[in-house]
Structures are given as structure tokens and as C-alpha cells.
């Protein structure tokens, strides 16, 4: 075992001891502790926990790499995954906190006075959460196998074991305080390499400002300007320009925003604070902690892209000779072993020609130089994972990135597992099958459900169904089209009734599910090619949740108009949740 690996074991091992220690200290004694941490979490702590809950393996490992290769088009993730918090803070969090129950399906069931609505909501929730959690467990396995060189299965089992201890033992209370620690680990691990790289490239220690600064060694050349030039020299589109259609960019952004506000594991975090005013404030803290990573990510993406190109093209980009394969740096060799970097010498000259071979306008230039295709395959995940090595940072920074990736994946997985277990124990078992169950019985059921959910998630992480890559489209689209409109209408309209809400949720769910299936073909072969010409209004499956949401609203309003108005006590319930005064502590049904 070399020095770096030993260091990684020590850092990751230390964080695990920390998480388990917190779980033992904060274990749950009642269902209130288990579901909503006894509603006693300080808004700042809740903000940190929400941020860790929200930022998944994808945010930590993949997002900067996505932006690095998408340039401007990557903005959909930045705006989409932060703008949702404005909707949460203004439209959902304070009212759901005032309502004061444990789960999202409980609100839908009470507001629409219907067991069927509860079941529909539970189905939406379980589907959204399981697709999401499979990706997280996979992320844990991958980080383990790359940094600690163990089998994916071993990594997965260790990860499952740790989540098992603190989620099953501590419930929401254990998860919340563990997430606070995980947030600190992951943000530190993300920003340290970013600061170093920003200093190296621009001399500015703040990556957010570095991205808008001039490059070191030049008075007038801005970093983004330089990046635009070098990528265009290689046949790529300008970094700061987009290539997606405007309507699609807007639809994806809105679907991600609304989807964020409709994700049950995010919403439920706002049930844990003591007061309505805390719920509003806590959304702000959550976004502040998220923004630290989300405003750094575009800098990491752009700087890593520039670093990569300058490594491959040490001289004048595309004019002089690229790097010879024999002279490749050490990190290049390391990451080649993982398959994340792949070199194929297509023209047999021993040099690494990295350029855009899919651009027909650039083809004559490439041909004139004797290039026979792009020779370097770069996985987007490498932009974060290999960043410290590319920038020659010390080993402890690399070890930290491993711990950060695991923290991001575990914290999100735990939050998701908790909403799954509470939907099963509270909404299905307690409210539908066994209404007379005691609090202790329900707590035990919740723990068993969490344990089963961890095993299913672990299985899905080890044998990922073909659709894991499409999880983002699915989870966000379904949340946007099903749960979000039902909750919003439940608060802002007194006229939407049971029939309208159920018809709306089902319409949104089936439409969105069907559209994604039609183009992405999960379980079946796609029925049509996934290209803009075939899309409805030019909106890709990633953004179709917006249309599903509009259909949901439309159907719910129409059906409600022609059926009986909700009973008087529902009107009173709505009036009551609109006013902050009177939000009590934890209460069960």
C-alpha cells in the first residue's frame, strides 16, 4: 500500500467514525425523532443538512465535468438546481411546516381527504426516491473502488453498513446531524482543490472571481476568453455560447427547478425546524450552503477544461505538435488504469490528438494535419476526481476528495432511504393497513423498512438497471409533474378537490413517464429516435416534466370545476396552514 492509499484510508476511516459517533449520540427514541428529528433542528443546522441531503454524488463528482464539456449549456443544472429553493421557500416550506405532519403523502391525503390520493402520492414518492438512491449507492461503490482499490461490491457493502447504522438507529435525527458533518467534509473537499487551481491559473483565491479574471502571465487575456479561443481552435463550439435550442434550455431549467421543489426528501427537511419562520429562513441557509459549491463548480469545470487542453497541447493549441503519449504525466497513467481516460493512436504517430472530430467544418483542417479522429476519450467525472492530481496538489487533498465524494453520496442516500421508510411505515402500514399500531410498533416498522430499503438500494447499486443514467430525467420530471402541482394547488386553491387532484397527479405522472419511455426506452426499446426533430414543442425528455406539470394543473382545475367542492373542514385546514401562528411541536395522527 502506498502513501496516498494509506492516507485515503485514514481520512475516509476518520469520517466514518465521526458519522457513527454522531448517530450513537443522537439516536431516535420516538417516531417524531425518527421522522422529523423531533422538530427541534436549528435553521442553520437544517440548512447544512439540507445542502448535504440535496448535493448528491452527481453534484459532487459529475456536475463540474458536465459543465466543462457543455460550457454555457451546463447552466441549466446551475440555475435549475438552485432556483428550486426559491420556489420551496416561497411556495411550499412555510405552509407544509405549519401543517405539521410527518410526510408529504400525509399532507396530500389530508388535504384531498382521500386514501387513494395517499396511495398515489406514496407510489410517486417511492418511484422517485428509489431511482435516485440507486445512483447514490453506485457512486459510493465507484469512489471506493477508484481511491481505495477495492472491489465495487466491497465498497458498496461498507457504504451500506455505515448508512444502516446511522439511518436505522438515528432516523431523521441521526441523519440530520450526520449530514451536518458530511456537509463540512464535502464542501471542504470541493473548495480546497478549486482554490489552489484558481490561484495557479488566475492568481485569485476565489474561484468565483477567478473565472472572471485574467490568466496568470497576461495583463489582458481573460480566462474565459482564452478558453473560448482554445476550444474553437480544436473545432469545439465557443465555451460561453450554447448549442441547445432556447426553448429546451428554458424547459430543462424549469423542470429541474420545479422538480427540486417537489422532491420528497428535500421537502421533508423543512418539517424538522421548530417554527414556520424558521422554515423560510432555513431554505435561505440551505441555498447559501449549496451556492458555495454551485458557484464554485462552473469555475472548476472551466479551469479543469483549460488545464486538460494545455496538458495535451503544451505548445500553440492545434498549431504545434500535441503531447507525445510516451511523455504523458503520472496522473494520466493512473487514470488510464481506471478506464476514465483512454488513448487510441488512430494515425499511429504516437501523439495525442485531442479535438472535436464530430464537427464537419473542422474536418478539412484536421485532415490537412494528418489527424484521423480524436484520440483521447475523457470521462467527465475525471474533472473533479483527478483535478488535484492534474494541478499537482499534495496527497492529503486527493484523500480529502475521496472522503468528500463518499460524504456526498452517503448523505443523499440516507435522506432518500428515510423518506422511503417513512412513506412505508407511516403512510402505508400505519394509515392504511394497521391504524391501531402503537408508537413503538411504528418506530420498529420504520426501522425495518429503512433496513429493507438499504438492501434494495444496495442491490440496485450493484446491478444497476439500464436506466440509472436516465435517473435525473425521471426523478425530476416525475416530481415536477406529480407531487409539486398537487402540493401547490393544495395550499393556494380552496377549490381543487379530491377528484381533481388525483386526476391531475395521474395525468402528469403517466404523461411524463410515457414521454421519457417513448424516447429513452427503459425496459423497452425506444419508440422514436431521441432527437430534437421528434420532440414535442422541441422539448427533450429532460425538460418534459414542465409539460406534465401544466397538464396536471389543467386537468385538476377542469375536473374540480365539474365535481363537488371540498368539504368545509378542508377549507378550514387550508385557512389554517396559511397563517404561521399556532405551529406546534411534533404531532402524530
Amino acid at each position: 500500500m502506498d502513501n496516498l492509499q494509506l492516507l485515503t484510508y485514514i481520512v475516509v476511516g476518520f469520517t466514518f467514525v465521526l458519522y457513527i459517533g454522531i448517530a450513537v449520540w443522537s439516536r431516535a427514541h420516538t417516531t417524531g425523532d425518527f421522522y422529523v428529528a423531533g422538530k427541534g433542528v436549528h435553521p442553520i443546522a437544517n440548512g447544512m443538512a439540507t445542502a448535504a441531503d440535496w448535493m448528491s454524488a452527481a453534484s459532487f463528482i459529475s456536475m463540474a465535468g458536465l459543465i466543462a464539456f457543455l460550457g454555457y449549456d451546463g447552466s441549466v443544472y446551475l440555475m435549475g438546481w438552485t432556483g428550486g429553493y426559491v420556489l420551496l421557500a416561497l411556495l411550499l416550506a412555510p405552509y407544509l411546516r405549519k401543517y405539521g405532519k410527518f410526510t408529504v403523502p400525509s399532507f396530500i391525503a389530508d388535504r384531498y381527504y382521500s386514501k387513494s390520493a395517499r396511495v398515489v402520492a406514496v407510489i410517486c414518492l417511492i418511484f422517485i426516491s428509489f431511482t435516485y438512491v440507486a445512483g447514490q449507492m453506485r457512486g459510493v461503490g465507484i469512489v471506493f473502488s477508484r481511491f481505495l482499490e477495492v472491489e465495487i461490491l466491497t465498497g458498496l457493502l461498507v457504504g451500506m453498513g455505515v448508512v444502516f447504522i446511522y439511518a436505522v438507529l438515528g432516523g431523521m435525527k441521526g441523519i440530520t446531524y450526520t449530514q451536518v458533518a458530511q456537509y463540512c467534509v464535502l464542501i471542504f473537499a470541493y473548495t480546497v482543490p478549486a482554490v489552489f487551481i484558481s490561484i495557479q491559473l488566475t492568481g485569485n483565491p476565489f474561484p468565483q472571481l477567478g473565472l472572471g479574471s485574467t490568466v496568470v502571465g497576461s495583463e489582458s487575456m481573460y480566462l474565459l476568453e482564452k478558453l473560448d479561443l482554445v476550444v474553437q481552435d480544436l473545432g469545439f463550439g465557443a465555451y460561453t455560447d450554447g448549442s441547445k435550442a432556447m426553448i429546451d434550455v428554458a424547459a430543462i431549467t424549469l423542470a429541474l427547478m420545479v422538480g427540486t421543489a417537489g422532491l420528497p426528501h428535500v421537502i421533508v427537511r423543512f418539517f424538522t425546524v421548530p417554527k414556520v419562520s424558521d422554515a423560510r429562513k432555513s431554505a435561505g441557509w440551505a441555498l447559501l450552503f449549496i451556492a458555495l459549491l454551485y458557484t464554485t463548480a462552473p469555475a472548476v469545470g472551466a479551469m479543469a477544461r483549460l488545464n486538460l487542453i494545455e496538458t495535451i497541447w503544451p505548445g500553440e493549441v492545434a498549431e504545434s505538435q500535441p503531447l507525445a503519449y510516451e511523455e504523458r504525466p503520472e496522473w494520466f497513467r493512473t487514470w488510464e488504469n481506471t478506464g476514465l481516460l483512454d488513448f487510441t493512436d488512430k494515425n499511429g504517430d504516437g501523439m495525442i490528438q485531442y479535438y472535436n472530430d464530430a464537427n464537419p467544418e473542422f474536418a478539412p483542417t484536421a485532415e490537412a494535419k494528418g489527424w484521423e479522429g480524436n484520440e483521447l476519450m475523457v470521462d467527465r467525472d475525471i474533472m473533479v476526481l483527478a483535478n488535484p492530481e492534474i494541478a499537482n496538489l499534495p496527497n492529503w487533498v486527493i484523500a480529502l476528495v475521496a472522503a468528500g465524494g463518499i460524504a456526498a453520496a452517503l448523505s443523499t442516500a440516507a435522506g432518500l432511504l428515510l423518506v422511503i421508510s417513512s412513506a412505508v411505515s407511516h403512510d402505508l402500514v400505519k394509515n392504511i393497513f394497521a391504524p391501531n399500531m402503537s408508537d413503538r410498533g411504528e418506530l420498529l416498522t420504520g426501522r425495518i423498512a429503512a433496513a429493507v430499503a438499504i438492501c434494495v438500494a444496495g442491490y440496485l447499486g450493484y446491478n444497476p438497471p439500464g436506466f440509472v443514467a436516465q435517473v435525473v430525467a425521471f426523478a425530476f420530471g416525475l416530481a415536477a409533474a406529480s407531487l409539486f402541482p398537487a402540493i401547490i394547488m393544495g395550499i393556494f386553491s380552496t377549490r381543487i378537490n379530491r377528484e381533481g387532484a388525483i386526476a391531475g397527479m395521474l395525468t402528469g405522472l403517466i404523461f411524463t413517464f410515457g414521454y421519457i419511455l417513448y424516447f429513452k426506452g427503459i425496459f423497452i426499446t425506444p419508440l422514436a429516435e431521441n432527437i430534437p426533430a421528434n420532440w414535442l414543442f422541441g422539448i427533450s425528455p429532460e425538460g418534459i416534466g414542465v409539460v406534465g406539470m401544466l397538464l396536471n394543473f389543467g386537468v385538476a382545475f377542469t375536473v374540480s370545476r365539474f365535481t363537488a367542492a371540498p368539504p368545509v373542514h378542508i377549507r378550514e385546514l387550508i385557512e389554517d396552514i396559511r397563517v404561521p401562528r399556532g405551529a406546534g411541536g411534533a404531532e402524530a395522527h
Partner: protein
Amino acid sequence: MSQQSEHQERRDAYWNANKRIMFGCLVVWFIVSFGFGIVLAEPLDNIQLFGYPLGFWFAQQGSIYTFLILIFFYAWRMNKLDREHDVHEE
């Protein structure tokens, strides 16, 4: 009955004031992201903010900062409104 309708009137006044504040915040939310960051991004890119083309800056930085300010503003403004209408929590 009149006491009850007065109570209802006060609740409606609070709710309408809340909706006005909320609507104002959502307009700003929409303008910075969908307006400046997407629809107007190209023309705005002709303006430079240090090394950032302005449209690009809104899409990858500015909109996020604005979202943050919006949420804290809303929380502060609503706390004030809760007190004005005497519906705040003890």
C-alpha cells in the same frame, strides 16, 4: 357572526399581502434566470463584467446570488408582515 367575518377579513388581508410579496419575488426570480440567463443571454453577452460575458455570468453565477438574496428578503419581509398582522408565532 360579524366578529367572525372581521376575523376572515383580517386573514384575507394578510394572505393578499403575502401573495403580493411572493409575486414580486417570483418576478425577479423569473427575470434573472429565464430573462437574463436564457432569453436575453446572447445580447447581454456583448457587455463584459470583468472577464465574464454578462449573459453567461447571469446563467452561471448571478442568478444564484439573486436567488439567495430573494429568499432572505422574503423571510425578513414575511416576519415583518406576520407581526403587522399579528399572526406571528410566539
